[in-house]
Structure formats: C-alpha cells, structure tokens
C-alpha cells in the first residue's frame, strides 16, 4: 500500500494531453488529405518535413533542459508541425519549412517554459515570423491541381522534389515555364490589389472567375491546409463532438466576421466583400476552429472565450478590409493571445452564492 499522502478524488476520467492532441491531429486529417489532393507531393513533403523537424527540435530542447524525452509522446510537437505545414504555401522550400518548425518549437513554446506556458500559438507565431522574413515566398500561391489547365503535374514526384529542395526558380529554369504560368493570386490578395486600383469587388471577382462552391470545396489558391472550408468544417465538427473544443470561440469569431461583413457589405457593396466571401476566403475557418481554440493560448472561461472570439473577428475583418495585408486571421489570433490573461481575469464566471441579489433572505 502506498504511503504517499494523496487527496481525493481517487478516480480519474482517463483523459490526457496525449489524447487531446491526438484528437486534434485526427480532426486535421481531412484538411491534410485535401491539401495532398490539391497540391500533390508538395503538400506531402511539407507536412512530413514540418512534423519531423518539430519533433526533432522538441527532442533537442528536452535534452538540453534535462527533461524526460517521453514528453515527446504528448503529441503536441507533432501537432505544432502539422499546424505550421497547413498554413504554408505549397511552394515553400524545405529549409523554410524546417526553419519555421524550429521557430515554432523554440521561440513559440520552449523559451516560455514549454507546453502550457506559451502566450502565443506556437505554429502561428512561426508562420508570422516566416511571413515577415520571407514576404515573397509566403505570398506566392501555386495553382492547385484542380485548376482548368495546370501547367505542372504536382503528382510527379521529381517536379515536386525540385521545387521543394531547390526552389521554384530552379524548376522555372529547367522547365522554361514563367512564374505567372504556374501561380495565381489568392482571392483575398486579388481583391486587395484591385481595390487599390479602384475596381469594385464584384468586378474584381468576376475577372478572377470566383465561385463560392469552389471556395467552399477548396479549389482555389492559398496555403495548403486552409483552402477547403468543407474539410475544415468536418474537422471542426469532429472536435466539437469530441468535446475537445467548445463552441464559444469559433462561433463568436466567425459570427463576428460575418456580422461585420454583412453590415458593411449592405452599406458599401463596392468596397466591402460579402459575408460568404469572407467565410470561405483565407485562413478564417482554420484559425477559428483550430488556431484560436488552442487551449494554451486562449481564455479558460466561456464568457472570456466569447470575448476572445469577438476580438479575433473584429481584427480579422478590419485587417482584411482596411489593412495592408490581404489576410489578417493569423495576426488577429496572435494579437488576441496577448489579451488572454486580462480576459481571464475580468471574465470569470459568477461563483455560486456570490452576488445573489434578486433573492429575498428570509422574512422580516
């Protein structure tokens, strides 16, 4: 019999960090599958290299900090790698992917003291570091396999390996293709560029040959994991059903973006895109269901989570509509991450028996 003094309860539900992280990995599988369908070997190489390098970096960090290597099994580093891969453009070269993973694990997580102590979502902070450091690579979108006449066959391994290991330019020199022939702007990027030229949004989208169905299914340019709203919805609903996340953050976040978009689109349809466009464009759904709900860097309390979601929504929509960047989902989540301690402090639930004003206490 154990002599360790142990407090009740003497039972445990059996949930663990490992299971929770694994559930999220499972939920990302549809999006990962779609990314491979759209971007072929490029997506596969990215996902594998990001996950492996994240795990390796974590292992080195644990070793250096003299912590047990068994912590690797909690799946959090693998998840960070997968997250990062899904937010990258398909043409990201290997070294950039590896650098991003190293950033994510070291600067995003371990310098704060490891899992549970980071202020920012590790994958997102690495993605933003990459965006700022390599703006051109991070905004070059290759045409997905579904496009009418893809100039490249992304299911051809050697083509993909050339892009992945030697860069897009190496492929262009060897295949005599021009960059414009294999890349296209993302819908958000397109309307942002056209808006600076004064073109109304509807016309810009017509010229782009935009369709809501394509955007919903994912047949458009963008980061490998964020294009398919359908796949992400499936994963999000899985997470909600498995009780890994609660509805508060994704609903508040997406709801706020939709509401703002609807109001402004009614007032000035030429300058502000429709709610549906906002919903399916860019990384909104990926961020709302997977990034903003990262437990470590989001508020704990339900009301706090709603405040957090609304904040993310306002910032995302504002950056998309007024900012210099075409997409603001990642920035908004990172900005709201900063506010989490404050939100947690001020939006605690009312404790049982406190501030019960509307009750009569006995009879006088």
């Amino acid at each position: 019999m154990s002599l360790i003094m142990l407090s009740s309860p003497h039972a445990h539900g059996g949930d663990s960090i490992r299971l929770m992280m694994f559930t999220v990995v499972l939920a990302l599988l549809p999006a990962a599958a779609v990314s491979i369908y759209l971007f072929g070997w490029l997506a596969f190489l990215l996902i594998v290299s990001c996950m492996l390098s994240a795990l390796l970096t974590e292992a080195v960090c644990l070793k250096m900090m003299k912590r047990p290597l068994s912590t690797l099994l909690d799946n959090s580093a693998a998840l960070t790698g997968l997250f990062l891969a899904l937010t990258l453009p398909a043409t990201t070269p290997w070294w950039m992917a590896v650098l991003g993973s190293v950033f994510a694990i070291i600067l995003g997580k371990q310098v704060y003291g490891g899992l549970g102590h980071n202020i920012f979502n590790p994958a997102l902070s690495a993605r933003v570091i990459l965006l700022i450091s390599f703006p051109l690579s991070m905004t070059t979108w290759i045409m997905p396999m579904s496009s009418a006449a893809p100039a490249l066959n992304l299911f051809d391994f050697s083509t993909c390996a050339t892009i992945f290991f030697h860069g897009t330019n190496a492929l262009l020199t060897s295949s005599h293709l021009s960059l414009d022939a294999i890349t296209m702007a993302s819908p958000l990027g397109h309307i942002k560029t056209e808006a600076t030229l004064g073109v109304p949004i509807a016309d810009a989208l017509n010229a782009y040959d935009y369709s809501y169905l394509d955007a919903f299914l994912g047949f458009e340019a963008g980061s490998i994991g964020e294009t398919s709203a359908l796949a992400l919805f499936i994963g999000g609903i899985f997470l909600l059903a498995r009780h890994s996340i609660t509805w508060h953050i994704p609903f508040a976040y997406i709801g706020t973006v939709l509401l703002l978009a609807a109001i402004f689109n009614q007032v000035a349809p030429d300058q502000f895109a429709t709610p549906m466009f906002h919903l399916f464009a860019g990384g909104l759904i990926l961020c709302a269901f997977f990034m903003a709900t990262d437990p470590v860097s989001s508020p704990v309390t339900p009301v706090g989570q709603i405040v957090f979601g609304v904040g993310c929504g306002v910032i995302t929509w504002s950056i998309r509509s007024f900012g210099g960047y075409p997409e603001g989902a990642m920035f908004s989540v990172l900005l709201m991450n900063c506010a989490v301690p404050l939100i947690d402090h001020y939006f605690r639930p009312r404790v049982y028996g406190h501030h019960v004003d509307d009750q009569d206490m006995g009879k006088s």
Partner: protein
Amino acid sequence: MESMNGLIYALASLGAFALCAGIVLAIAQKIFHIEGDPMIDNVDALLPQTQCGQCGYPGCKPYATAVAGGEAEVNHCVPGGERTMLQIADLMGVEPKELEQEASAPMLAFVREDECIGCTLCIKACPVDAIIGAPKQYHTIIADHCTGCTLCVEPCPVDCIDMLVKPELIEHWAWPLPDTKRSQLGHERREQHAGHA
C-alpha cells in the same frame, strides 16, 4: 522664429502643469496627513509577537521600529521564519535575505510545579503575561497564551521550567503540497529565489 515660439509654448505649458501638480500634491499632503510612521505598525503586524528578543531587540515592536527605520535587516525574526521574512521584505520593498537561524518547532513552557519555589522571577520575565502565581506560591503557565519565547527559563533559580514541543492538534493539521515533481519544483524555485536574492 516660429520654432522659438513653439519652444516657449511648450516650456510654459509644462511649467504651468508642474505648478498645478505641485499645488494639488501640497493640498493632498495636508488633507491626507498621517500621524506617526504607519510603516512601524505595518511591520509589527507581520511579526509573530512572541516578544522573544531573538532578533536582538527587546521585543517585536522595537524590531519593527528598527526595520521600518531601515536600521535592521528583514531576516532577524527567528520564530517568524521564511514566510515572515518574505512578507516584511515585500512590504519594505527590499530584496529577501537568507534566514540566519532556522525556526524551530513551536514550543511551550511548562513549570514543574512541585519544584517551584514561588519566586515570581519568571512572572516578571514573561513578556506576554502568560504566567500566573503569587509570591511563595506555585506558578503556572497558561498554555494558550505562551508564545514559547524561552525568556522565563533563564531567570528561574531552581531550573523548574521546561520547554516542550507544542502538541500538534488534529484539528489544526493542514494539507502539505501535493507530492508531485511539479509542485516540489515550484517550491524549490521559490526557496532558491528567497535564498539567493
């Protein structure tokens, strides 16, 4: 010339602001004036009031006065232990210092009554009036009032006062920190911080 004007305006407005702030502060000082040094009472409130004199001062209040006046270090209170030291350091806004002496378990004085000669010397020595008795009569220590300061032991001419370890009551038992690595780690770090700083 214009830049000269700007400079003058800036200086004048800043000066006016400083003047206003000065007046407000002066008035506030008059209104919220506090008699005496509140710091002494604040430090005194943190001390365990054993009046044992182990800090080198004749009692808790004198030590509080010395600490508040900056004449004494914050780590001299032995019975208060680390907690008291940290609290005083926090209140005074100074770095914590390592304790000079470990606090012992709480003690209790006990008079072996059949040996007591009723000299009243211990009664005079007790700083908290925890000993009762009259000349030529047995003395008794009120256990609930004794702070365990040991000041009564030395004056006793027949050495009939023992210091006993205060019995631990099951009602006063408190849960220790969980026996997990994480909680111990946090605790060690706190102690290290207190020790090295």
